[in-house]
């Protein structure tokens, strides 16, 4: 949740306007560079966070039920 807030802040006015000049860095527009680098960083952080997330023990039992449910049905269809 916090990560999304950071994302919304970084990808909007006024932070975005800092890079909006149109100048080139290493021959690439700064705005373009900023957006894609932030994007890549965001994906990396979000990936690390979500991969580390556990399925709540209390929630877990429903999952297998749903699965066997579907596979069995498909097998008979």
């Amino acid at each position, binding site marked *: *949740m916090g*990560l*999304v807030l950071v*994302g*919304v802040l970084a*990808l*909007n*006015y006024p932070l*975005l*306007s800092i890079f*909006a*000049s*149109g100048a*080139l860095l*290493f*021959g*690439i*527009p700064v*705005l*373009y560079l900023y*957006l*894609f680098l932030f*994007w*890549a960083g*965001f*994906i*990396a952080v*979000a*990936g690390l*966070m*979500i*991969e580390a*997330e556990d*399925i*709540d023990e*209390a*929630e877990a*039992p*429903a*999952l297998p*039920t*749903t*699965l*066997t*449910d*579907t*596979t*069995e*049905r*498909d*097998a*008979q*269809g």
Partner: protein
Amino acid sequence: MLRDSVILLVGFAYLGVLFGIAYFGDKRADAHRSIISNPYIFTLSIAVYCTAWTFYGSVGRAANSGVGFLPIYLGPTLMAALWWFLLRKIIRIAKTQRITSIADFIGSRYGKSAMLGGLVAVIAVVGIMPYISLQLKAISTSYIVLQNYPDLVMPYESSASALWEDTTLYVALLLAAFTILFGTRHIDATERHEGMVAAIAFESLVKLLAFLAVGVFVTFGLFSGPADLFTRAAAVPELASLMSFEGMSGGYASWLSLTFLSMMAIMFLPRQFQVAVVENVNEDHIRKAAWLFPLYLLIINLFVLPIALGGHLLFPSHTFSVDPDTYVLTVPMAERQEGLTLFVFLGGLSAATGMVIVATIALSTMVCNDLVMPVLLRIKALALTERKDVSSLLLGIRRGTIIVVLLLGYLYFRLIGESYALVTIGLVSFAAAAQFAPAILLGIFWKGASRRGAMAGLSTGFVVWAYTLLLPGFAKSGWLPVDFVEQGLFGIELLKPYALFGLTGLDPIAHAVFWSMLVNVGLLIGVSLFSRQSAIEQIQAAFFVDAFRTSNQEGQARFWHGSTTVSDLKGLVGRFMGAARANAEFATYARRRGVDLDEQGSADPGLVNFAERVLAGAIGAASARVMVSSVVKGEALSIEGVMQILDETSQVMEYSRQLEQKSRELEAATAELRAANKRLQELDRMKDEFVSTVSHELRTPLTSIRAFSEILRSDPDLPKHKRQEFLEIVVKETERLTRLINQVLDLAKIEARHVEWHMEDVDLRQIIEDAVAAVSQLFNERKVALKSQLPPVAAIVNADRDRMIQVVINLLSNAAKFCEPKLGRVEVSLVANQDKLRVAVVDNGPGIPSDQAKHIFEKFHQVADQQMSKPRGTGLGLAITKLIVEHHGGKIWVESTLGQGSKFLFLLPALQTIAARAASSRNH
């Protein structure tokens, strides 16, 4: 040279490959070996988000507004970070409730409302129509451009073709056929289409590779790397603006609104809901998809700006008039790259067909289950509930819907599509899909959201959307008078669709988003707060909001309270899904529960509920409810059922309440302990006092004994009578000491309950007589008259005989002690009344001051006697008396007036009372 025949051949061959993949996928699914059950295929299927709009339109938008194409992809990236919490919850709900479309989801959440589901279906169809037409437009445009290879001819330059010559129509019909083949093979309770998902995933791969190929070709083939490309573009003034934020029309407000729209679209576009929720195999796939999908978006967008700038540099606007929407295709064409051009065409075809297939399947499920079926079921004349086999009818409706939807899309394209850029059409659809967001998001987190609220919010939001985006679009295409756009409805300025209520400064999309979301959210919350939910609404709300807690499906069983037979239920399900599938479903249920359904005549609530869920998968929740209630006799939903469901969700509250109670009990126990401790301290203090008093009392006689003994020892010449007198005193004091010690021991024993009480039934008259006889000598010595007044009948008490005699003796000797010799008169009397016996000892002694009367029974209390310095008693007699009387369940007190004698009284319960008390104590 690319001939028509080559293009068509490649196109059809590609569709054939898709077909093969889909067929393979379905076969594998049937064989129980799913090929789509992994997070990578799941991610690729979600990438159906990237349509022809992404493939061709992004470059077009980038060519006009620089980075303006990016919010459409940044929004989903942000949203994907929330998937683990949000999407997983929606999937969990959808699986438990067997939800098969977004209309079903919203209808289910708000009390399985058919009205609401229908409304959502209508909004979806109207909202998505432009989007489908956009895909058809992209296919036809790319085909026409390709047809003229290697000349660069824009579609609008070619002559308008007649209807039967229009390839787009054939594309639409072909896609309809493809969708029907893989989307509506049979009616399934889960509405999952593994083959289709496999084909979609493959298409996502093709479009990504095709786009990357063009990107790499432009960036590294035509230019020497990105730096070279950007530097050369920066030299052109009009292109330089594309690299800054200036190119973005509508500025930051537009940027923000696009981000918001795309965040909603990735969740709530019907096709996204279809692939991400309905087709999801395993919740855990979200884990990888949440970062792989944004990565896919990043990669496919990497070369958008380079291609746009490259296109601009290749086709300067004054020499060629090439539509930037076609750069992806026209740049390779201009360079005579036949193979690449064909590959790009296939990529675009992939992007467009993928979207059309998934969207029409989603729409057909919705229209069939939430729009057509509820209406058909309600038309009594059709007697649909009586029909033997409805499953073929269901399939027919769905297939018909697919064809109608695609033809409508085609119609929209023929009539209106030409006037719009790809991106704008897409955004209109995004704004429509965003209308679902409040009802769903609030619905799964806030139990208070009600059906009326959702109805009001959705319908008003939809109307505002149509008025501010859809109708102006019609007007621009000449289908409506353009006046109402420019002057406002009826010429009222405030009603101008692009500046509603005078709101200006926003682009049309941001403007429409602002107003529609404002009324949508506002009405949903406002109306919900002021409307009452029905029982079924409350139950559904609880299930949706507590999806992770109540995923136990048994709870739902309590909905059904009526009775029906197993065969009725099976027949009902069979009518919609075919008898064979129904049998299979019921067999699965029986096996899982370990019950034999054939033996059971009547269906238990669990089975009824199971049948409803299976049906819900096939015909939608609202219709399933109607159907099941048609065979279940009796009340469908009892108020007790509602309360039980609510109980389930309030179990947590119950736990905390119990905890509170526990802690209250603990507090009470602590208070008791504290009181006991206080009492112990008090007793300890009393014991100390007692010990010090006893020592003091013992010292007094000891001191006098010692003093007189020493006199006798030191003075042997003491006259004989003196000596005799002193010895007398020593003996008396010794006797007093003995008595005192005996009494202390006695008292201690009684207090410590070490005394053995020999309880028996005795006549109180006898006791008094014995006591009087015992003290008669004392009275004679002191010359005090003693009189007793006893009743003629026996007064039986249950008591320790010796102790009772001790009590009376104590009182009598006390009286004798304080009476004046010769003048003293003491009278003992016994009165029996009802259940009490009263004994009174009256004397005519000096009396007791009233302030001392209540202390007289305390240990060592001596009534102060001014005349005599030496106390006459031990101060323990009355204390012992009191203990004995109280042990017998009695009560003792004194009535006295100073100078007029005293009256000691005690009450004892008569025998029957004691018997009752004994009986009750035995029960403990």
